[in-house]
């Protein structure tokens, strides 16, 4: 095993890791921003509002992420209106196409996690808010969402880890993320074992950091442990 090569490749792999981090972080933030209104629509009292995001969630959870990336990267460019629109400078870039696809994909999963958490808030706590004169929207914003976010955190941590690993697909549309960087190095050196091993260790490292961050957030947001029941 060529340990020297692994060490030599580290700077390029680290640059790939940075790209992976950017993809996951930006898509994560955009995904959450998209997920909140989708989740709120899913818990609406009105049946037609609940139905609006059904197709969105069904499509994004029901098709492979790779297909979604290809649809954005290769698909959108097929339309002349897209090519001529002001969005083209963005949609031309593989980087932004990956972020768009990842954001949409993770938003569907995150919305479902959040919906479950919102519905798991004990009804009595919501009643207490309403009984004090809070309008429905205020009770949602002040009581239900803060409660739901705390309950959703563990499941959301899982989603971020899945997203991290899914981000390897960005390498299929020319991006030099961690996997992309590894593949370019291998193309020159023909040493897949060493390079993929090194890349795998770096993915593990990132997963470890995510797990730690989520656990820290959980602890920070949880009320202090009770001495009684």
């Amino acid at each position, binding site marked *: 095993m060529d340990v020297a090569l692994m060490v030599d490749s580290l700077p390029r792999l680290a640059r790939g890791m940075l790209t992976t981090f950017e993809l996951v972080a930006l898509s994560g933030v955009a995904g959450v921003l998209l997920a909140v209104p989708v989740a709120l629509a899913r818990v609406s009292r009105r049946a037609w509002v609940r139905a609006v995001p059904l197709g969105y969630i069904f499509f994004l959870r029901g098709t492979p992420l790779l297909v979604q990336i290809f649809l954005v990267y290769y698909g959108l460019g097929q339309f002349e209106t897209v090519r001529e629109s002001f969005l083209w400078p963005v949609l031309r870039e593989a980087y932004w196409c990956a972020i768009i696809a990842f954001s949409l994909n993770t938003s569907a999963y995150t919305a479902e996690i959040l919906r479950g958490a919102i519905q798991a808030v*004990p009804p009595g706590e919501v009643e207490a808010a309403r*009984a004090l*004169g809070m*309008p429905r929207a205020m009770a949602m914003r002040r*009581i239900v969402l803060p409660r739901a976010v705390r309950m959703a955190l563990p499941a959301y941590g899982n989603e971020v880890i899945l997203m991290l690993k899914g981000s390897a697909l960005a390498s299929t549309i020319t991006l030099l993320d961690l996997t992309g960087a590894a593949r370019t190095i291998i193309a020159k050196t023909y040493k897949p074992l060493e390079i993929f091993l090194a890349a795998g260790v770096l993915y593990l490292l990132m997963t470890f950091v995510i797990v730690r961050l989520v656990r820290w957030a959980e602890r920070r947001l949880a009320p*202090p442990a*009770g001495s*009684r*029941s």
Partner: protein
Amino acid sequence: MTENATRNGDSGLDAKPNVPALEVLEIHKSYCGQAVLRGVSMRAHDGEVIAILGSSGSGKSTFLRCINFLEVPESGAVRVGGEEVRVRRRKTGGHAVDQKQINRLRARIGFVFQSFNLWPHRSVLGNIIEAPVHVLGLPRAEAVARAEALLDKVGMADRRDLYPNQLSGGQRQRAAIARALAMEPDVILFDEPTSALDPELVGEVLGVIRRLADEGRTMLIVTHEIGFAREVSDRTLFLHEGRVEEEGPSGRMFARPDSDRLRRFLASHLN
């Protein structure tokens, strides 16, 4: 805005002594075709404490929840200090009420739940100041001062920064009572406030409610603590199968019940 005129007067001797603090008219409610309330009415004057008794299934909790529209009755009306909320029939079937009006009404009616329903992610203080700040628009400092005075009153001054899961059941219920009081409500509804408590913790909560009665607050109390009801209430409402079976001054009702049902109910609860 006549409502403000009555609202600010809590002495019971202000300009409108004849307007009851709370009036409930002909409440009908059913679940899945099963009638739970069949036209229940009542009124409470300023400073009156009314006990609502009845065996389980008599509709007493539902009645209380209909008063602040946690359950929407099929028909009926509720008046608080002269402002009336009436259930309208929708042309499409079903029934509707004015949400804004209900929110305004709820801010004037305190509600204390059997299961406390404190918000576990907020400290005791956070639970108490939430609605005064965000519903009434009180400045934070003022809400905190009000909350501290109330915590002192319910004997929890040293617990303001604890979270609900760090409190005993009795402390949780006292915090919940302080949360309701922080809105300075015209009427307070208690829905079996001690039923979820261990027997040794019941006393501290009843003590707080008794002090509120002595202060002259208008209160409706659904309870199974018959001895407490007799001691603290001015009038009693006895419900049976969704109707008022008997009502009157508590002293008379507990001493000489008119109806057989109330007599049997009292006998079985006073054992």
